[in-house]
């Protein structure tokens, strides 16, 4: 039930935002994450944004793992 999906903000209109959710445009509530900007990614749950997705953090974490495992391979 706590399923949440990422979506990109296309437009903002007060308490609601239009997002691109896997290619579908849909309106979501942004009461819980009010300071969103067009182009940002949100996590959507039951018709509301519950948080922003920190794209930088997502990228850095993966890069860290990629580097770590590449390093291990070189050692072995």
């Amino acid at each position, binding site marked *: 039930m706590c399923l949440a999906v990422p979506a990109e903000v296309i437009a903002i209109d007060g308490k609601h935002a239009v997002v691109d959710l896997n290619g579908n445009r849909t309106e979501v509530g942004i009461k819980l994450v009010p300071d969103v900007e067009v182009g940002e990614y949100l996590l959507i749950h039951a018709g509301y944004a519950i948080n922003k997705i920190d*794209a930088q953090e997502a990228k850095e974490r993966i890069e860290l793992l990629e580097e770590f495992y590449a390093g291990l391979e070189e050692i072995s």
Partner: protein
Amino acid sequence: MQVLKKYRNPELIKPMLNEISELSQKLDEELKLMEVCGTHTMAISKYGLRSLLPKNIKLLSGPGCPVCVTSQQEIDEMIALSKMPEVIVTTFGDMIKVPGSNSSLEKEKSRGADIRIVYSPLAAVEIAKENPEKIVVFLAVGFETTIPVIAAALEEAIEEGIDNFKLFVAHKLIPPALEALLNDNEVKIDGLICPGHVSIMIGSKAYEEVVNRYDLPAIVAGFEPLDILDGVKGALKQKVEAQVEVEDKVKAKVENRYGRVVKDEGNQIAQDLIRRLYQVVDTAWRGIGIIPNSGLELRDEYAEYEIRNVIDLDVGDSNEPQGCSCGEILKGIKLPYDCQLFGDVCNPQHPVGPCMVSSEGSCAAYYKYDRR
């Protein structure tokens, strides 16, 4: 978001599994990790992670499916409510098949009850707006992820003056449930994989009390295969380090490995909203019983929006289905296979208990992906 696809990359999953496998050889005894989130339950089964992990690491599914932990009495009350001609019941889809003592919402719907499945509580508010002559009730089931979303919808309804919109509040809180589980002598858990989306709201700090009191690792993890394995690795690492006999023994800690959406403090707006509308109460969990401070009720100022304050729903005694092991499965004492009804008498077409009904219940997940 392209970068998220990398969290399913086999080229990263393989070396991580190797690392886990090597670390696991250092374990003195079996490591039992419990997740408490239906979305984790489904993801673990769907990606076949149990079969990829070393044999001495066991992943258990706890009470992480809100539908599964809703008490029989509440289900009976919801069914009784749906039979009232002046009421439209709106609900998330998972609730509809759950068998009550004598019926289910699905059966009542087939008999003509006005029960509508919605994806968002905002859709329920719209239904209330379109049907001013009816009382429109939303079945407010869910944990901390869903609670603020429903609260936000209620606030929007109040702001717009839609006073025929009501809630049937059956919310549950995760940290008190973790505490109750760890207090139960029958339950054997060595670490927690904490629910990623609940944690968005309550913050990773919310687990510190439990971790300090019971000295076991708690890792906040996301839902991609790499996220979940990273969570397992975190708990495993802490456990292996704690085995070393030294004077200043390393204390177990909370680790946030889902930092792309979870912050230490959580979502303050959501927390404020919950505090504004609700007060904490004791509540009954299916199979577990009453857990102190694990539920919510609307504050006095908002009491008129709780349907049970408007309509008296006396359903008498409720009975949990006979032979169903849902309660023990929710506590990780039994696996779905250990239930005598699993897969035979009880299956997704004819579910006996809620763990088979909900698409994210343990039994449903094992039936679909993990059947022996």
